[in-house]
């Protein structure tokens, strides 16, 4: 296995990369923290007793009474990035029912290195317009909870239909659940793009101005920096794509909250009636162009075939139908030129995650599930194919 200079970066190396790729303030903070912690011991999952002990101290400083107990701490499966535990808080006051929460802890390194305050603010901003677990408390430095962490309300539901058989990345919604989930999904997806976030506390984000390209350049810098910090080998197509993205940035026509990973598998639903109970995984949320979320959803990796063999974008419906419905629900146009740009952008961004960061954090044994982050690297050829197809179209 490769051990290179990035595995034990000097302070100068870190500062040089920061200076070369100026990006949003808190993106910079999260990435710098990652690099300063890189040359440390492997990360070991926290045990449940430690988690309960830290939570007790943390909540004692925040709840009105210290007369409470924490119980039923359980490790949650799913999610490739954060270590998650569900737990119950029971109160001495017999009139107050026990409450179930989830803590999302940042491991040593993640496939996406993000800032807990951004995730916290994004979830708070949108939980009035769609089902999102209420973000209750935050420890953005990890001083109290051992690692930077969020505490959220527990949401009931499943991320994929119950199924038997070997693991497969395909969700296999099937006709029944597809019929129930597609209209709800589209409604939330469109609502996010149209949402007026200006009244929310989004101070952890650097908002781009309408008509500008600075926000997109800052995002390209952020991802190019991740590539520089994490890649274990060069990939000429990635460099070429970065150059094209910088040269071709479309000005932003409407500033939306962009989720960054809005797709089937990142929401929970009730298996009995198919009601979506929670849109999850807001850690990549940022202020930007809605076409980024649309382009990401349209990657063939998330597509499924209908029972009649028709290709369904996002696993839900034919692409043309999905885009038309999105325009109707959001009241915002889908611009094919911007969409093509963001298909290259999201392919490039996702390839950085799956080629560079997934390999890097497994190499340093920095996560609680190296085997899962390594598994994600198997998706890299699909993202590279998306980049290649997009660039080929532009060059033809």
């Amino acid at each position: 296995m490769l051990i290179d200079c990035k595995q034990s970066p000097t302070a100068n190396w870190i500062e040089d990369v920061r200076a070369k790729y100026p990006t949003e303030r808190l993106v910079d903070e999260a990435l710098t923290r990652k690099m300063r912690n890189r040359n440390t011991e492997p990360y070991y999952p926290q045990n449940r007793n430690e988690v309960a002990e830290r939570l007790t101290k943390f909540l004692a400083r925040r709840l009105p009474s210290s007369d409470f107990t924490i119980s039923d701490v359980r490790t949650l499966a799913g999610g490739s990035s954060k270590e998650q535990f569900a737990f119950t808080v029971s109160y001495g006051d017999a009139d107050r029912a026990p409450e179930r929460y989830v803590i999302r802890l940042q491991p040593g390194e993640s496939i996406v290195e993000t800032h807990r305050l951004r995730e916290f603010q994004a979830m708070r901003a949108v939980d009035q317009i769609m089902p999102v677990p209420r973000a209750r408390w935050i420890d953005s430095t990890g001083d109290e909870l051992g690692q930077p962490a969020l505490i959220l309300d527990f949401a009931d539901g499943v991320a994929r239909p119950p199924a038997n058989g070997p693991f497969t990345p395909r969700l296999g919604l099937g006709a029944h659940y597809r019929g129930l989930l597609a209209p709800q999904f589209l409604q939330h997806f469109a609502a996010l793009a149209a949402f007026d976030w200006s009244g929310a506390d989004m101070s952890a984000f650097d908002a781009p101005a309408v008509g500008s390209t600075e926000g997109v350049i800052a995002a390209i810098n952020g991802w190019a920096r991740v590539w520089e910090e994490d890649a274990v080998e060069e990939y000429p197509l990635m460099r070429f794509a970065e150059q094209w993205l910088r040269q071709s940035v479309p000005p932003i026509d409407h500033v939306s909250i962009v989720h960054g990973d809005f797709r089937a598998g990142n929401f929970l639903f009730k298996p009995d009636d198919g009601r979506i109970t929670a849109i999850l995984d807001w850690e990549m949320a940022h202020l930007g162009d809605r076409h980024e979320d649309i382009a990401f959803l349209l990657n063939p990796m998330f597509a499924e075939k209908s029972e009649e063999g028709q290709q369904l974008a996002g696993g839900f419906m034919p692409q043309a139908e999905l885009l038309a419905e999105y325009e109707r629900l959001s009241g915002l146009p889908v611009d094919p030129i911007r969409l093509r740009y963001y298909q290259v952008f999201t392919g490039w961004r996702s390839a950085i995650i799956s080629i560079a960061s997934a390999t890097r954090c497994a190499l340093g044994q920095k996560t609680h599930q190296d085997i899962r982050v390594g598994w994600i690297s198997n998706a890299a050829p699909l993202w590279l194919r998306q980049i290649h197809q997009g660039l080929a179209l532009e060059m033809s």
Partner: protein
Amino acid sequence: MAPDIGLRIQSILRSIREVIIPALPQTERLAADQAQLIIGNLLIIIDQHELIFHYALTELAEFSGLLRDLSHEIGDDSGEDDNGQNDMLLARAQSLLELHLPAYREIDDLVRATRGATDRLIRSTAEHNDSVVRRRLAKLLMDQSARQIERERAWTAASGFDPDRNSIPPLAHLLRA
């Protein structure tokens, strides 16, 4: 090739040691025993996987040498009528043994170096003034990338991520003979 086989095995070992075994109930002795055997086998594979061709070639050298020496010693007295089969075997073995088989690490280091050199070249061409040259460079890169992506799709096909798996040629068809 990232992650490489060694890194994949390292991650499997962590998962078994730090997640699966601690979660096994004390009463599940057979499962615990099998988990330890999986660890043992993986540790062997970590040692072996980069050297499998060298090991096979060493064996080929040893056994073809022994066959040649025994045949020479016994001469025509063996009583075994092999119709020249042994000579043919020895000739095939000799042709393989004459090949230079580089160490996996040697190849991997060179791949990394050529990737890096190509990347630096691409960086430098961003500012190239001649648009015709830029277009020709782009075409060369895009053609090679298409082959690279197809090979990587085949390399990872078993993961099930690729919805278009049936369109991928068999991996062996995409590799150097």
